[in-house]
């Protein structure tokens, strides 16, 4: 399980930096470093096992039905990458502590960095392809945040966006690719897939899977032609560049190729696609790097080139090349991170990263200069440094590679790339540190504090140690990692400085000679380059994304024009078409169940319903009339519920009707009193036809269902209600128990809706809107705002209604009632007071505000659900028992009652909040002085508390 913690600790630790930043920047950095160190220590506890050949695994099921499990494993490859990510992460944290200025929000930075670290460790340790994809996408997202860390800078935002689009887009392809791969291998577990290489390569899904996986890997690892995002990502703070864009994230693509090497490599397609892609990237990256004047830009293109080198080696598909690739991953991570950090130091101290304004820094900052020169030598491939060794291995492999019969293609192009590579390394070193001291640096450069150059020094140590003693220092690690990549016996190789006069040595010598010539003739070469046509990848990218956005917007506007009638029309017409087709293409007979007799009462009610519904249709333009008629419909519906044995629904309908009418009246006060006719007669006929057909269809369906004796799920609920839910009122048991999840979600939605009404109405009525509404307000017909009779009646009714509410609530589980109805009854009782004595008077006497009531309601319902966890049961499992009390006798106590209390509180809160807010709006439109008295009539011995009691 500790292995799983290695992945999870950075995520949990990401909460820490923003919290402890209050105690200072040092504490913040120490906390972040501590998190990383803890993860590293846990990883290292597995080192003995990994080195002895075991593969530690850990994991728990997540969504087993989907093949998703939270499982990790650490073979040589995963272990090596995880260790590299954590070790370099630690150094970057130290470096960033001194790099970031006081103005930068360090807590946020370290939080992002830890999130990235966790995602990256997750990528390399995942044992499940879906989990890997999740982490893969998270690296894209967190790197977006890190690149755009300086949000005020436009180039940072653009660079972050570009990186996200390219790597995120590749991530989408990767999702498809890995799912196809899992399909071909018949498992979602990587350990399984890795052992089924033959099966995958023989599968017809192999080629599509390969292409899609490569799309993901190439975009992430900045392979040509997707390389252009990486230089633009250099707008990030330098610690990010050193961490993400040299050592870790851009290696994720290389890692993926290495990870899937045993499964996918060894075919014609693998070699023919990947090897040239890597070669071209290596060449182009190196060539562009030479002419870059920005230190970080130069290093970025150099990174592109080195990533191409690794990709090419993996693409060759031979075990020997794989060993070289792994070895170069180690070497590149050390010298390139060191160089990025040095570039950051130069920028920090000298105030510029432009090579043309630098030079001679060796004298002014000897420590940084020495470290940077050592790392640059390794980048160039100078003997005695680690870069030399892996580059020799690369050249050796390239020398023996024949591509489609062309024996010279790979050796020649690899040598040319090496020429450029030596040349840009030399230009970096000479242009920045050597040469005469200048007097025109923007700042006065000197060596930075220890904390800033120490991480560089730590990285330079392996550069030299591996360079001098490759076998003893790096041998075991390379063997371990390479064995995991190859998944079989290692080829016969040995890491050493001297291999005799080999083709690679010759190519190396050619590279050094060529580079010397190139540096001497740099001015002429640069002039030549300036005359070549330039391809501005950024402009092309912006243009194409711009076109894409415009296209999306156009199609969106065409499809989603905001006309509700149109959406409904399309939906309903489709339903009619599909339903009609189903109806006409089948045979059917009349129902068997005899209809009920038609009584005079039923006929009257039916008549009232038809008349009122028809009236609403005819008078829908006159809003008040329509509202009155809707009230009639409500009454008849309540009657129908009562008649057909649904007392719960009848009670709900009765109270909902009251609340709805008041709500509509409050809104109507602020709205025009009539709806204008906006559609032509033809459109009305068309819409009427669709609506009529749909109505006939629904009526027919209802009739068909009601004339047949079908089996339904009601039976289950009826029999299970008492034994399963502990209540005899099936409706209530369904609400609070069987479908408690639904109810829980619904009260949350209800609460959100009320808060949205509150929030939307709060600022909406200012300026022009208020004036418009004012012109619309109806004439005041009466001066009696708070009539005495009404005040007395509602005051008498208040305790009565509250008792009824409490009664309905308490018996709800076994008899008609429950939290919802009780909430409505209590809300009506309170609203009555608002209507009778005004908002000001009533609000003063309401000690609990509606928002807290909603919050408490949802919290109580949620806590009741969570309480089930304490007994080891799933969320919202209810329980009930019987208590014996001397006075009351035996009574039932169900946990569902607490849940119902939550429903009750939410309903009351929602009603009060929305009604009160609507009435507040009207008050704002017409701010007449508010009465603090219960009624307008002054009774004897009543002393007015405020002036202007009469409104």
């Amino acid at each position, binding site marked *: 399980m500790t292995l799983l913690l290695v992945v999870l600790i950075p995520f949990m630790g990401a909460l820490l930096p923003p919290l402890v930043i209050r105690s200072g920047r040092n504490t913040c950095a120490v906390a972040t470093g501590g998190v990383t160190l803890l993860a590293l220590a846990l990883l290292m506890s597995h080192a003995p096992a990994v080195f002895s050949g075991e593969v530690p695994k850990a994991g728990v099921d997540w969504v087993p039905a989907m093949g998703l499990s939270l499982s990790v494993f650490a073979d040589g490859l995963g272990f090596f990458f995880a260790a590299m990510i954590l070790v370099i992460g630690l150094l970057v944290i130290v470096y960033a502590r001194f790099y970031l200025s006081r103005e930068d929000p360090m807590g946020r930075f370290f939080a992002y960095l830890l999130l990235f670290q966790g995602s990256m460790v997750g990528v390399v340790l995942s044992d499940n392809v879906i989990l890997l994809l999740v982490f893969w996408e998270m690296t894209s997202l967190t790197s977006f945040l890190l690149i755009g860390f300086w949000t005020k800078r436009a180039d940072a935002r653009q660079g972050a966006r570009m990186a996200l689009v390219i790597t995120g887009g590749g991530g989408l392809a990767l999702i498809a690719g890995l799912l196809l791969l899992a399909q071909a291998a018949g498992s979602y577990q990587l350990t399984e897939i890795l052992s089924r290489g033959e099966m995958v390569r023989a599968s017809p899904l192999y080629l599509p899977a390969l292409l899609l996986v490569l799309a993901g890997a190439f975009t992430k690892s900045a392979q040509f032609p997707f390389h252009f995002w990486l230089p633009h990502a250099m707008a990030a703070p330098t610690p990010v560049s050193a961490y993400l864009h040299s050592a870790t994230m851009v290696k994720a693509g290389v890692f993926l190729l290495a990870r899937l090497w045993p499964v996918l490599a060894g075919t014609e397609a693998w070699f023919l696609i990947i090897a040239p892609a890597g070669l071209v990237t290596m060449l182009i990256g190196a060539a562009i790097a030479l002419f870059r004047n920005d230190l970080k830009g130069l290093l970025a293109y150099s990174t592109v080139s080195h990533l191409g080198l690794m990709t090419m080696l993996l693409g060759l598909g031979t075990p020997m090349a794989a060993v070289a690739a792994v070895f170069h991953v180690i070497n590149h991570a050390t010298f390139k991170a060191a160089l990025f950090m040095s570039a950051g130091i130069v920028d920090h101290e000298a105030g510029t990263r432009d090579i043309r304004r630098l030079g001679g820094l060796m004298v002014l900052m000897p420590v940084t200069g020495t470290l940077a020169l050592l790392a640059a030598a390794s980048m160039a491939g100078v003997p005695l440094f680690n870069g030399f060794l892996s580059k020799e291995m690369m050249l050796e492999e390239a020398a023996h590679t024949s591509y489609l019969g062309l024996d010279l293609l790979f050796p020649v192009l690899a040598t040319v790339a090496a020429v450029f590579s030596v040349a840009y390394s030399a230009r970096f070193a000479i242009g920045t540190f050597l040469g005469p001291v200048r007097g025109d640096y923007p700042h006065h450069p000197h060596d930075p504090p220890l904390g800033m150059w120490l991480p560089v020094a730590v990285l330079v140590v392996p550069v030299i140690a591996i360079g001098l003693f490759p076998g003893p220092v790096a041998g075991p690690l390379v063997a371990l990692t390479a064995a995991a990549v190859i998944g079989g016996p290692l080829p016969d190789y040995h890491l050493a400085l001297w291999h005799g006069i080999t083709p690679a040595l010759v190519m190396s010598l050619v590279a050094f000679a060529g580079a010397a010539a190139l540096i001497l003739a740099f001015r002429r070469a640069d002039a030549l380059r300036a005359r070549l046509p330039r391809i501005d990848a950024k402009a092309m990218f912006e243009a194409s994304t711009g076109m894409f956005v415009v296209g999306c917007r156009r199609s969106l506007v065409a499809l989603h024009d905001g006309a509700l009638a149109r959406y409904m029309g399309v939906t309903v017409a489709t339903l009619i078409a599909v339903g009609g087709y189903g109806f006409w293409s089948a045979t059917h007979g009349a129902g068997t169940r005899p209809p009920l007799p038609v009584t*005079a*009462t039923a*006929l*009257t*009610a039916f*008549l*009232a319903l038809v*008349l*009122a519904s028809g*009236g609403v249709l005819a008078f829908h333009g006159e809003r*008040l*009339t329509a509202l*009155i*008629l809707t*009230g*009639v419909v409500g*009454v008849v519906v*309540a*009657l129908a519920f*009562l*008649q057909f044995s649904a*007392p719960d629904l*009848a009670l709900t309908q*009765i*109270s909902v009707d*009251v609340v709805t*009418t*008041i709500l509509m*009246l*409050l809104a*109507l*006060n602020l709205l025009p009193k009539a709806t204008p006719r906006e559609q032509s007669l033809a459109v009305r006929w068309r819409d009427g036809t669709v609506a009529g057909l749909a109505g006939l269809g629904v009526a027919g369906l209802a009739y068909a269902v009601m004339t047949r004796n079908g089996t339904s799920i009601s039976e289950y609920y009826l029999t299970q209600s008492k034994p399963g839910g502990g209540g005899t009122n099936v409706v209530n048991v369904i609400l609070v128990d069987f479908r408690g999840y639904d109810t829980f979600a619904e009260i949350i939605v209800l609460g959100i809706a009320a808060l949205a009404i509150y929030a939307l109405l709060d600022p909406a009525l200012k300026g022009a809107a208020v004036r418009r509404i004012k012109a619309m*307000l*109806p*004439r*005041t*017909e*009466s001066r009696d*705002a708070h009539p005495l009779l*009404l005040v007395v009646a509602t005051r008498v*009714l208040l305790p009565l*209604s509250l008792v*009824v509410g409490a009664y309905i609530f308490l018996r709800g589980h076994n008899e*008609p009632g429950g939290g919802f109805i009780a909430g409505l*009854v209590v809300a*009506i009782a309170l*609203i*009555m007071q608002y*209507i009778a004595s*005004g*908002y000001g008077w009533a609000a003063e006497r309401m000690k609990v505000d509606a928002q807290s009531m909603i919050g408490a309601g949802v919290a109580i319902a949620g806590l009741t659900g969570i309480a089930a966890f304490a007994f080891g049961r799933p969320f919202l499992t209810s329980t009930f028992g019987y208590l014996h009390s001397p006075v009351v006798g035996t009574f039932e106590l169900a946990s569902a009652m607490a849940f119902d209390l939550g429903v009750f509180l939410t309903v009351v809160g929602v009603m009060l909040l929305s*009604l*009160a807010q*609507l*009435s507040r709006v*009207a*008050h704002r439109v*017409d701010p007449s002085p508010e*009465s603090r008295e219960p009624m307008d009539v002054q009774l004897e011995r009543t002393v007015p508390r405020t002036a202007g009691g009469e*409104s």
Partner: protein
Amino acid sequence: MIAAAITIAGGAICLAILLTLYRLAVGPDATDRVLALDTLVIETIALIVLGGIAFGIAMYFEAALLFAMVGFVTTVAFCKFLLRGNVIE
């Protein structure tokens, strides 16, 4: 005896409802219609109580009680709207 009484009362209530519906349809004012709705609620209460007696179900009485307790609030709200514009001042 009780059955006959229920039949006669039911018929009377139905007749009242039909007359109310006539007022609702004809109007002419919003005030008339609001009053018609109020009357309809009272008739419904009567009908529910009658149903409770006829079928012997106590639950009907509770529905009637709830109707009686909250039904008038709708009428009050309509009246306040017509007279004052704002229902809650």
